[in-house]
Each structure stands twice: as structure tokens, then as C-alpha cells.
């Protein structure tokens, strides 16, 4: 691997200007940029400039080096010094250029002039746009209290400013994208270990993976380390997944477990581990609480019982339990990430966490690790208090253990639709697309229809933006100055990255920070946004010796903080101050303190269960219209088992109509043994209603149009796998 360090990055003077100004953008026309892109390599004789950045094509934030020729970004390469990603850049990362130079980008503020969803827009200037948004927010605040505004931000380094703005404006109603993703998994591990762990995959000898697809849904460093552990260190990978994913295809063993029955498998593992005394008794006695209760609880969950529920042979369950225990503590039931699956997802993931606790796969090499110290500061501010506000969030009390900073999208939607407990009439959305990613698109649409004002800040006109009253164009990650962010990389690293503009912002796009600053100024809140991002970053990095220099020199700062044994002498952040096999708080709240198995819901006769998932090519719904990624994976299809296909008289490639309680859609069938009978799968992010997304408008089918809107009873996380569909051959 060639060494990058000698490459002088002469970017400082440019950055100073780029960070300070807001709209350097306007001059660069799209045509000019595109012609620059196809320019012949004759000009390439001049060496390119190299600039550090961090990828934003998904949430991993891989360090990268942008190659810039004549002011045009021509290639994005991995930063070889970036340990969290193991110096790689995936297909999405490489396609960041196609996002930057996407001809379908939003170019200037747009005000809706037709009916909602009619797609009629008027180009307006920034002053008019910000005046409009501020006056609407003022109006809603006066009429409905400030909690009448709802703020939703996707995963972005600037999303923290949306939260800050919401707080100083005076609304409690902030939702992140995470209630459509991983909150039930976070809940489960937090309520067992007192924190959400990171998996030391690299040093693990035995990895049991259920409800996760690491070779397609890439998570760094886990996805990379999994392959290294398997091929260089002989680690064993056992995959439980109803679908034959690429992870399943590369595993040492794969079991097509029945959907919604992972808990039966995990409870049986605990049963075997306890009845055969395979756990570390001293460790469990010292660090955990509730072994007796757990032992009594799992007595009835033997492998034979589990086989009847989950379809994995009892002998294999028993053997896997023994193998896992033999490899422990350098072993793990991999925690997974997206867990927006079932109405009892928190309890399902608790059953994963409990096996890890029993086997002492914690705070040691090859197991699960607590978060490491990074040391990035969070600059404080004093938010004002508004006496007329209601006492709580609008979605409060609908699920017992929601996260204050994340809320629940599906529950907030209920609150807005019903007007209870109080009216919420305004919505500020930044870079997230619930019309495509949240269950029951029709309901989201109906909810939007009850709003007085909706503003969306995004790079392209997503389906959500398409329904807004005001759309504000944001630059891509390659065009802006972003705050520093701390990243946890398990045993690989604990690090900090930040972004400086690689090229000036295109068109009239403005970062959401500038937009919020503009709004704050118009709403008498200027004092809370009286800084620029460079100052903010300096506050974040204060006290981190060498961080600024490392970021300039290597594009990343590593904190050489302790990796293992960080809990020695520390209490666990649970009620019992120990790792809780038996959850005391759940018990006090009337929730099951130990995961109680209930069989998955049965669908109506002849109905098929719909599941969703990821490929390595696309991120949620944000990349399907990216020209390069769309070329790699241009559409979606309904995966259908040959037996089901035969019963429905559907041939491979034929169009099918799919209907659920939430809605219907049409897409081609992919007849494949990779899904079991009774189960169908489709990829996220196609079948867009927004016509400007030219690659995916009317192409394929949106999961949001079919998914029913269940949610996890404990965390309020969406439950995306509780949907049953009927499939019929398409008439045309």
C-alpha cells in the first residue's frame, strides 16, 4: 500500500474562505461541472490535489481522500490511515462523486405553488425562503405552543444543530431516524450491560450472527474484521437468517431460521449453557445479577422445544451452544444493528445479550466491548424556557422505554394525526426520507396533509421533500465544513473525523447549519447560533492534545484509550449496578424482566410474510437514484420461493401485484430458493413518487407502500417484519 503521508495537502487557505462564507456556490453551473467530468484525460498530466474528508454515503463515516483535478473531484479513495474502515471505500463511497455531481440535485429554494403532491414549484431566493420558514414557525409557535413544531433529522454530522435549534426554539418534539432502525437493539443491550456495546469481531473465534447481514449491510470495522477473523484467524461464523444472504453464503454454517423465532433459539442456548454448566460461574457471580431467575426461566426452553419453534434441529442448537461456550469469552452472539423487526424486538435482542452475559463475552478480547473514550467535547448552551409549553413530547407515554433524544417516528405520526395530546402542525425535516423508509406510506401522507407547514432540507427531491411546502437545497458532504465527530471502532480505534469542503458548494445549496442560523436570526434566537463551525470545532477538540494536527496531517485523530478491562472497578449503569440477566426495572414497570417467548403472529391464509434488508450497493433510500449505484443495482424485485411461485403461477421475472393492510405495489418477481416458502423479500428505496428522481421514479416498488406500521412495545422502534402480503400475478 503506497504511503499517502508525503502528499502535502495544500488546503488551508482555501478552507478558511470556504468555511467562513455561506454561499460560495452560485457560480458553478451544472453543465460546466458535468463537462468537466467527461473532459479527456489529456489534462490529467498535472498532479491532482488530495484532500481528506469522511464519507457520508452511509452512517459509517469512512475516512477518504478526494482527488481533485482543475477544481473537479475526479476520484474518492480510501484514507489508508483510517483504521475504523481498515482503509477501504465501498461501492457507495466510490459513488460519492455521483452524488456531488448528480444532475437531479436540488439547486435553489423551491416553494410549493400547486396542491400538495402536485409537483408545482416556484424558485425563490434564500431571503424569501428563510423569511417564509421563520414566519410559519413563529405562527405555529404562537398558535399551538412551540411544541407544535416537530423536527426530524437523519444521520448527519450537522444533525446536532437541528436538535439544538429545536431546543432553543422551544420544541420537545425531535425524532431521529433511529426509531426506524436500531433502538430496540440499543434498548436491549443498554438494559442488560448498561450500555450499547461494540463487537470485537477481529479477535473473536466464534461468531453467531442472527438478525444481521454483515457482508451486505456493511458496518465498519465489523464487516471487514469478520472476513479477516474467518480467513486469517480461523474464526467460525454461524448465521441464522431466513434469507440466504451473502453473509449466509459465506458462513461456516447457515440455518434458515423461521422469521420471528430467534428468541426461541437464544433461550435454548441459555438453557443448554446453564443446564450443562458451560458458563463462567465465578464471572457470572461477580458481575451479573439474576442467574437464579434466568435458570428457572429457561428450564422449559430446551432445544427440542426450540426446534419446534424455530426449525433449527435440537442437536445443532445443543452443539452450537457447546461450541460457543468452548470459544468464550472470545466468542459472541453478534448484537446486530437494525432491529426494527418485530413487536417484541427489544425482548428478542435481550435474549442475545443474555447469552453473551452468561458466557462472559464482555470487556475482553473477542467479545463485546464498552465504548472507548474519545474525549470530544460537546459545546454547551443554555436553552430558554417557555412556560406555555405542554409537559411532554407528543409521542410520550405510548411506549414505556423510549429514548428522549430519538423519540419514535411511528408514534409521533400517530400523535400528529390524532392531534393528541396536543396539536403538532409544523415539520422541519433534514436529510431523512420517511416517505420511503417508514412503514405505511399512506399514513405518512395523511399525516402530512394535516400539517400547516412542512419544510425539507435535502440534497435531492426525495419523496418526503416532494410533499413539502418549502424545499431547501443542501450541499453534499464534499462541499461543506462539518463539526468533528467521535467514532467508535471497537478494538480498531476510537477516533475523530471532521470535514472541510473539498470543493465549494454547488448551485445555491446551503448547509443546514447556515439555514438554522438564518432562521435563528429571524426568530430572536441569534445568540444560540452566534458561532461558526470552525469555532465550534475548536471547542469540541479543546483538551485533545495533538488532535488538530492529526486531523490535518492524517485526516483522523486516534485516542489511544483503553480497549479492554474498562469496567474494572466501575459499576454497571443498571439498577442493580451489575450486568442484568434479570432486568429489575422491567420488573418494576410490569414488563417481562426476562424474555418470554411468544410465537410470531400468523398471517391470514395464503399470506406471505414480507421482510426487508440491505445490499452492499444501497443505503436505506438515499442512494437508489445515484447514477453509478443505480447502474450497479437498478431496481428491486420480490424474492419468491419456487414453491410459492408455482402455487401462484408466477414465473421468474414476471410482474406481480403485492398487497398488504397498508397498501399495494407492483414489481417483478425473482423466483429463488434464497427465501423460504411463506416469506418474501424486497430491497428498500425504489418506486419513488418524486419525478425528479429519474432513475427510480416509477421503477420498482417502495417498501413503505407495503409495510404495516407495528412497533416494538418497549422502545417504540418500528416493527418492519410484521407485515403480511398477498401476491398475485399481474394482469398486464
Amino acid at each position, binding site marked *: 500500500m503506497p504511503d499517502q503521508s508525503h502528499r502535502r495537502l495544500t488546503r488551508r487557505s482555501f478552507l478558511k474562505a470556504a468555511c467562513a462564507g455561506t454561499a460560495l456556490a452560485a457560480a458553478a453551473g451544472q453543465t460546466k461541472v458535468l463537462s468537466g467530468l467527461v473532459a479527456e484525460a489529456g489534462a490529467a498530466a498535472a498532479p491532482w490535489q488530495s484532500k481528506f474528508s469522511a464519507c457520508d454515503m452511509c452512517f459509517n463515516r469512512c475516512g477518504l481522500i478526494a482527488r481533485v483535478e482543475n477544481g473537479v473531484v475526479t476520484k474518492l479513495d480510501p484514507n489508508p490511515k483510517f483504521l475504523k474502515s481498515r482503509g477501504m471505500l465501498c461501492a457507495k463511497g466510490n459513488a460519492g462523486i455521483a452524488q456531488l455531481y448528480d444532475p437531479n440535485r436540488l439547486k435553489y429554494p423551491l416553494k410549493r405553488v400547486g396542491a400538495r403532491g402536485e409537483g408545482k414549484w416556484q424558485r425563490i431566493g434564500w431571503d424569501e425562503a428563510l423569511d417564509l420558514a421563520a414566519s410559519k414557525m413563529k405562527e405555529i409557535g404562537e398558535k399551538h405552543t412551540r411544541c407544535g413544531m416537530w423536527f426530524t433529522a437523519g444521520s448527519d454530522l450537522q444533525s446536532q444543530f437541528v436538535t439544538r435549534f429545536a431546543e432553543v426554539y422551544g420544541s420537545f418534539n425531535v425524532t431521529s431516524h433511529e426509531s426506524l432502525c436500531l433502538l430496540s437493539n440499543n434498548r436491549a443491550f443498554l438494559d442488560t450491560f448498561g450500555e450499547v456495546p461494540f463487537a470485537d469481531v477481529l479477535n473473536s473465534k466464534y461468531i453467531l450472527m442472527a438478525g444481521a447481514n454483515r457482508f451486505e449491510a456493511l458496518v465498519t470495522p465489523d464487516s471487514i474484521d469478520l472476513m479477516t477473523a474467518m480467513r486469517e484467524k480461523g474464526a467460525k461464523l454461524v448465521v441464522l437468517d431466513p434469507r440466504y444472504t*451473502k453473509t449466509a453464503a459465506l458462513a461456516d454454517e447457515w440455518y434458515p431460521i423461521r422469521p420471528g423465532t430467534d428468541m426461541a433459539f437464544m433461550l435454548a442456548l441459555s438453557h443448554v449453557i446453564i443446564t450443562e454448566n458451560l458458563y463462567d460461574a465465578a464471572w457470572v457471580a461477580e458481575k451479573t445479577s439474576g442467574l437464579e431467575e434466568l435458570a428457572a426461566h429457561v428450564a422449559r426452553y430446551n432445544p427440542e422445544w426450540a426446534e419446534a419453534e424455530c426449525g433449527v434441529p435440537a442437536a445443532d442448537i445443543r452443539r452450537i451452544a457447546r461450541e460457543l461456550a468452548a470459544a468464550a469469552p472470545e466468542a459472541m452472539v453478534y448484537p446486530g444493528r437494525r432491529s426494527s423487526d418485530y413487536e417484541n424486538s427489544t425482548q428478542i435482542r435481550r435474549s442475545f445479550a443474555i447469552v453473551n452475559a452468561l458466557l462472559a463475552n464482555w470487556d475482553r478480547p473477542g467479545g463485546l466491548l464498552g465504548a472507548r473514550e474519545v474525549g470530544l467535547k460537546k459545546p454547551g448552551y443554555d436553552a430558554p424556557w417557555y412556560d406555555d409549553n405542554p409537559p411532554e413530547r407528543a409521542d410520550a407515554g405510548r411506549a414505556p422505554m423510549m429514548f428522549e433524544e430519538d423519540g419514535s417516528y411511528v408514534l409521533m405520526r400517530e400523535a400528529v394525526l390524532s392531534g393528541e395530546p396536543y396539536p403538532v402542525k409544523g415539520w422541519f425535516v433534514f436529510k431523512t426520507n420517511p416517505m420511503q423508509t417508514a412503514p405505511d406510506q399512506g399514513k405518512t401522507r395523511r399525516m402530512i396533509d394535516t400539517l400547516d407547514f412542512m419544510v425539507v432540507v435535502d440534497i435531492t427531491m426525495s419523496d418526503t421533500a416532494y410533499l413539502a411546502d418549502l424545499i431547501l437545497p443542501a450541499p453534499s458532504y464534499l462541499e461543506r465544513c462539518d463539526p468533528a465527530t467521535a467514532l467508535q471502532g471497537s478494538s480498531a480505534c476510537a477516533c475523530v473525523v471532521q470535514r472541510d469542503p473539498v470543493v465549494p458548494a454547488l448551485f445555491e445549496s446551503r448547509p443546514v447549519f447556515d439555514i438554522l442560523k438564518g432562521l435563528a436570526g429571524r426568530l430572536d434566537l441569534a445568540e444560540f447560533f452566534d458561532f461558526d463551525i470552525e469555532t465550534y470545532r475548536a471547542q469540541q477538540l479543546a483538551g485533545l492534545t495533538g488532535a488538530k494536527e492529526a486531523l490535518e496531517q492524517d485526516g483522523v485523530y486516534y485516542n489511544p484509550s483503553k480497549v479492554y478491562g474498562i469496567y474494572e472497578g466501575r459499576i454497571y449503569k443498571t439498577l442493580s449496578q451489575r450486568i442484568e440477566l434479570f432486568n429489575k426495572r422491567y420488573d418494576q414497570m410490569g414488563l417481562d424482566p426476562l424474555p418470554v417467548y411468544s410465537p410470531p403472529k400468523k398471517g391470514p391464509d395464503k399470506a406471505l410474510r414480507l421482510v426487508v434488508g440491505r445490499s*452492499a450497493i444501497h443505503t436505506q433510500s438515499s442512494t437508489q437514484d445515484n447514477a453509478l449505484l443505480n447502474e450497479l443495482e437498478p431496481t428491486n424485485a420480490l424474492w419468491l420461493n419456487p414453491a410459492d411461485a408455482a402455487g401462484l403461477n408466477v414465473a421468474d421475472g414476471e410482474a406481480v401485484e403485492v398487497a398488504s393492510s397498508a397498501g399495494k405495489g407492483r414489481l417483478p418477481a425473482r423466483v429463488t*430458493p434464497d427465501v423460504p416458502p411463506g416469506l418474501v423479500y424486497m430491497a428498500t428505496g425504489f418506486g419513488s413518487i418524486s419525478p425528479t428522481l429519474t432513475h427510480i421514479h416509477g421503477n420498482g416498488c417502495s417498501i413503505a407502500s407495503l409495510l404495516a406500521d407495528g412497533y416494538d412495545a418497549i422502545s417504540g422502534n418500528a416493527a418492519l417484519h410484521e407485515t403480511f402480503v398477498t401476491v398475485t400475478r399481474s394482469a398486464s
Partner: protein
Amino acid sequence: MSAQYAMIIDSSRCIDCRACVAACKVANKVPEGFWRNWVKQSLPVPVAGKPGRGHFQPGACMHCEKPSCVTACPTGATYKDASDGIVKIDPKLCIGCGNCIPACPYGARYRDPVRRIADKCNYCPERRAQGLAPACVDTCPTKARVFGDVNDPESEAGRLLRANTNRLVRVVNTKTDTQPHMYYLAATAPLDWPAEAVIRPPMAALIKAVTPGVSALVGLAAVGVAVMAGREFLAGKSKDHEPRDRS
């Protein structure tokens, strides 16, 4: 000994994420609908409990020892560079006739509809000139690819090749084994996809008659005009630039 640049691929590490495909496409400005590289897959019908048995196989131009594309090229535009072992295309000599395309058993070539000449992997010379690995190698998440001069025992590629002489797998069509310089470690699948090299008869006859003189001839200005005309004519009509199957 002169250099022989080659790719050593541990395809058992490939996860089919196609980072290499995207990176190559951007680095080499490959036009829409075309690719210089690919990942083939072998996914037998799944059996519960058994090892997954899936295998993903990255590939591209194999820079063969006996390249049939060189044989098929009437102008000498395609040649194997003796200094580094890389099979190259001289854009000034290529008339875009497309003969090299079926001549490659691996489907590694396409006709660039913009430049109207043949195109394929050239191991990213612009990147190597700046001290960087080819785009596909640099970006690969699982580091399944190792690139280098296999004739240099000090290079990682050379070392790997020597350490694994009895475990190397080459993917070839036995009827037209071009002796590729793309080596797979230990095992790979699928193996049955290379086609028989097709060298179009009229051209084959022509080559037989005039091979030594052709490249000298096309250097002449008069022939150069013919080259341009040929490009327009052939590129406009041929269907060889249909998007290739990436199976």
C-alpha cells in the same frame, strides 16, 4: 528479467460488494452501460446447516501471456508491453473494428462508444504514476486483491505467487488457454465461464498475410485517414458494445 504485472486474488475473501467495480468505473471514466471489471458469483442452491458454499470471483483483463486479443488486432493497437507485461491498447492505432472483443475469452473488452475504440483494464497507469495502487486494489474492503510485479520476488505479489505455486488457480477455456496472469489463491468459482476465443476469419487471414507489416503501415498518414473512417463506420454499426453480462 522484465516485469510482469499481475493480480493475485484471494476470491474466498470477496463479499461481492462491488467496490472494485465502482472504483474502476470512476477512476477510468468508463461510460454508462460498460465495465472494465466484474464480480462473478457461484451460489449453489442453499442447504440448511451446511456451509454456505457461496463464492464470489472478481475479475478483469487477465493480461495474458498469450493474449488472443493481440492476435486478433489488425493494426497492432493492442499489444503486450514487453517492459511490464501489461496488455495495452494504443488509442492512436485502434480503428475500433471490434475484432478483439470476441477474441477475449473473458469478455474483458468493450468498445467505448464515446472514444470509439476498444477499452479494458490497464491497471490504472495514471494512479500508479502517482504512487497509488490500481483503483480496484486500493478500495477493496477485504483486501482480496494483491497487485504487483510477480517477477519481483521482493514484491508482495511475487512473494504470494511463489509461496502458493501449488495452490494457484487460473480460470481458462482449455481450448484457447491464453495463460492469464490473473491468479486465484487456493480455489475459486465459477470456473466454467470463459468462452473460446473467436478470431474473425477475414481478419485472421489478413493477419496471416501481413502481420509483421501492419503496425508500420497504419503509422502512415494515408492509412491514418482510413483508420478514422473505419472507426466511424464500424463503431456506428457494430452491436458489440451492448452492455456485457455481469452474471
